[in-house]
């Protein structure tokens, strides 16, 4: 797939900006806080309907405006698609594909696929389990768009169940509580049924990702390191059978009932899952060096690219936010070899100095300055001379 055109209207610091992408790689050059990452964020929103930086749409709409809009033309094997996502300060969204307003926003997913790689992704290794759950959920949403719906349903059941637990324990000190066992049992059943679907899908995607990530990792590390990725569901999966997992789920809820009663929140379910990364049998989180952690994240990202390509049978976009310059020349070249010209890549950077000449040769270079984007041929000539 190829993102041909992007039009931003009152989005973040862009008033009205159109961009035509003309090369397999686009380098967005500019100082900090000029709007480079905002542009990648717009693409991320089109691909996942989520931004890793903002949880509320009011942050995405330009200051002083009430409505913002992202529009894109994407070339796919089956033809071009026009995507429009209209954002409002109030939080209401409108998703439009080829002029047709979608009744369900979830149907927007799957037209544009993208893998984002930013310096924040080191948190995948260093951060808490929440970062890793978000990562696997974002990937799943692109591979199986219905997963967005399942996850939303699960979270809704979780919120309802938590509200019920809090109500039933609210007057803990005053009168003896009278828990509505029937109602709690129904929420348990909903949580277990939906949670099981989340667990199985997460398990499945990790299983598919592991061999690809391991192969990349071996290659990048020069065949010296063995990567292992292990899904650690909160409710153990001994047998990949929905009824068996649901049964385990309910049994575990029973076992933790007293703890839940005192902590007033749901303690069992995929909202407490984790994924463990290890290098040569050592947990990457505690023992991995910075370089090892970087190699690991790069391998994961390359694996995501390959897996999405495999599943949707078209190469997704790659969004590199400030990371390329952090990689040494050897890893830069490995990345270049991996993506070649097959994956359209958008790269943000503050300076071109550390880029390999091969990267620059196949790139369109755009300058980003306070919410305005312009082609910069002079820069390109300069840099070619500099690196040549």
């Amino acid at each position, binding site marked *: 797939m190829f993102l041909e055109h992007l039009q931003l209207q009152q989005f973040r610091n862009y008033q009205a900006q159109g961009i035509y992408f003309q090369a397999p790689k686009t380098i967005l050059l500019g100082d900090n806080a000029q709007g480079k990452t905002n542009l990648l964020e717009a693409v991320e929103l089109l691909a996942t309907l989520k931004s890793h930086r903002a949880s509320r749409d009011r942050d995405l709409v330009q200051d002083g405006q009430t409505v913002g809009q992202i529009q894109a033309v994407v070339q796919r094997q089956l033809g071009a698609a026009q995507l429009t996502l209209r954002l409002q300060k109030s939080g209401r969204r409108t998703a439009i594909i080829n002029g047709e307003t979608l009744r369900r926003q979830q149907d927007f997913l799957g037209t544009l696929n993208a893998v984002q790689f930013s310096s924040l992704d080191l948190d995948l290794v260093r951060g808490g389990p929440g970062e890793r759950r978000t990562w696997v959920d974002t990937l799943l949403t692109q591979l199986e768009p*219905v997963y967005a719906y399942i996850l939303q349903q699960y979270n809704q059941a979780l919120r309802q169940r938590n509200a019920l637990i809090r109500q039933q324990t609210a007057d803990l000190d005053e009168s003896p509580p009278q828990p509505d066992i029937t109602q709690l049992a129904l929420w348990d059943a909903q949580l277990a049924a939906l949670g099981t679907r989340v667990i199985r899908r997460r398990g499945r995607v990790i299983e598919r990702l592991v061999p690809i990530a391991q192969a990349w990792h071996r290659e990048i590390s020069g065949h010296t390191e063995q990567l292992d990725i292990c899904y650690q569901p909160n409710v153990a999966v001994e047998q990949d059978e929905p009824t068996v997992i649901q049964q385990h789920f309910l049994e575990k809820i029973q076992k933790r009932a007293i703890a839940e009663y005192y902590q007033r929140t749901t303690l069992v379910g995929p909202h407490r899952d984790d994924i463990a990364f290890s290098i040569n049998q050592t947990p990457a989180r505690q023992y991995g060096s910075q370089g090892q952690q970087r190699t690991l994240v790069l391998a994961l990202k390359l694996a995501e690219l390959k897996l999405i390509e495999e599943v949707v049978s078209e190469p997704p976009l790659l969004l590199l936010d400030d990371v390329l310059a952090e990689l040494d020349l050897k890893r830069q070249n490995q990345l270049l070899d991996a993506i070649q010209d097959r994956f359209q890549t958008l790269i943000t950077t503050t300076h071109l100095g550390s880029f390999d000449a091969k990267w620059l040769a196949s790139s369109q270079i755009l300058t980003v300055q306070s919410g305005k984007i312009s082609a910069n041929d002079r820069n390109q000539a300069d840099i070619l001379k500099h690196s040549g």
Partner: protein
Amino acid sequence: MAQALTDAKQQVGLCSVCFHLSADPVCDICRDNRRDNRTLCVVSDSRDVIAIEKTREFKGKYHVLGGLISPMDGIGPEQLTIGQLVHRVNKESIDEVILAISPSIEGDTTTLYIGQLVKPFTRVTRIAFGLPMGGDLEYADEVTLARALEGRRELE
């Protein structure tokens, strides 16, 4: 217009039997003795009664819950007319209770809750969910298709 709105506000209350909107203590539907007393259709909201009435295909009577179970909004079974429903089913002779509640998380929980309470007294069914008429299978979304598969039936 202003007068009409004030009148509406003053006159419209709830039917004491089914809790549908009504100007009288007992609504037109409940009073209509041509309708089948033995089939009860349970909905969450008066708007659902109006929607089903438009089809003119249902000849039984209704029971309006006045919402769905949602602990987040402080709505438990006590806030709905579930107790009255159980009482009706217990007292009147009812052959079938049809649960016509939207397939959301809250709707499903409410459906299951009522099902458990009413099942000892009578036959309980829930309406089917699936493809819209004239809809094309290949264009149906995955969620709707999954629901439709779940509710599949033997070919008669």
